[in-house]
């Protein structure tokens, strides 16, 4: 894989689902599968899920390269990369 590439992860499946443990979802979709050198763009429609992710990502050893709301799509995003 090109080290400069960005992998897109859509969190639609964990949004607004009571019982869907967000931390478990973050771990299985992102934290435990991320590879060094790869940048991940994680998108969410829910500001609460977005806030949880950007806070927890730092605790789990990621660098947050960028975060915010894409005004065109209305989606929230976090750009993550494993800290070296």
């Amino acid at each position: 894989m090109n080290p400069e590439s960005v992998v897109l992860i859509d969190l639609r499946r964990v949004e607004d689902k009571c019982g869907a443990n967000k931390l478990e979802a973050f771990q299985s979709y992102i934290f435990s599968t991320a590879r060094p050198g790869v940048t991940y763009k994680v998108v969410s429609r829910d500001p609460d899920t977005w806030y949880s992710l950007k806070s927890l990502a730092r605790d789990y050893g990621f660098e947050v390269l960028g975060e915010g709301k894409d005004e065109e799509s209305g989606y929230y995003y976090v750009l993550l990369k494993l800290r070296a």
Partner: protein
Amino acid sequence: MSGRVGPLVEPDWLDKHLGEEDVKVVEVDYDPETAYRVGHIPGAFLIDWKRDLNKYPERDIIDQYGFESLMRRLGIRNSDAVILYGDYNNWFAAFAYWIFKIYGHDNVALLNGGRKKWIETSRPMTREEPRATESDYRVTKVDLSLRALFIDVLRNLWRRDVVLVDVRSPDEYAGRVTAPPEYPNEQAQRGGHIPGAVNIPWSIAVREDGTFKPLEELRRVYAEKGVTPDREVIVYCRIGERAAFTFYVLRELLGYPRVRVYDGSWSEWGNMVGAPVKTGEEP
């Protein structure tokens, strides 16, 4: 602040009153590890829905002594205004609101839009957890008329002056799913709904950002389905939290006089031997 709040406060209002001694802000979460623990409104205390509002080992809501003890631990006094908000579209905050009403704490409000709206509007958040000074809280009245048990629902089936409202998704109501896979502890032996119940999903009451729709619109939506203030209303979902949300809309926002939450909901009814069940789209 000195005075009564509620039933609904806006984020701007809370911004102005944060830190006042007689205004207690409480976040009510289903999943505190990805909500309160990673950031909350400055000064807010935590109610963990599973741990703090449910009784163990039996299945029940906390009793009045449990509520008293919770209020004391959080430093809430009888005279305080309590502002509740939380994760998952305020569902569990609404459940807490219902419990506050049962145990007679009327000076309580929901924060419009919950965590979602607060974060969306870039308001302050912190990880710092406040320290409470234990209070001497006492429950002085208990209003169990706000709650329906299985037997109450059974007795009221098909009564014209009582309307049952199922606030789950259309798929759950029709019996196509008993509970989504991410809710392994909330499965039922049977799918469907309580005969006679009308399906009005909880989400009908909110906009995309989690705030409530205009009252006139809400009044019309419920009335179109036969849910009118002259009838007693019993609301249910799967474990009671979405039902508490609709209870809040009907009783607190729209002023319906007789609304009860059947918190046993489908996780009780759908497992009960001999309970009548209807499948499909029709009541």
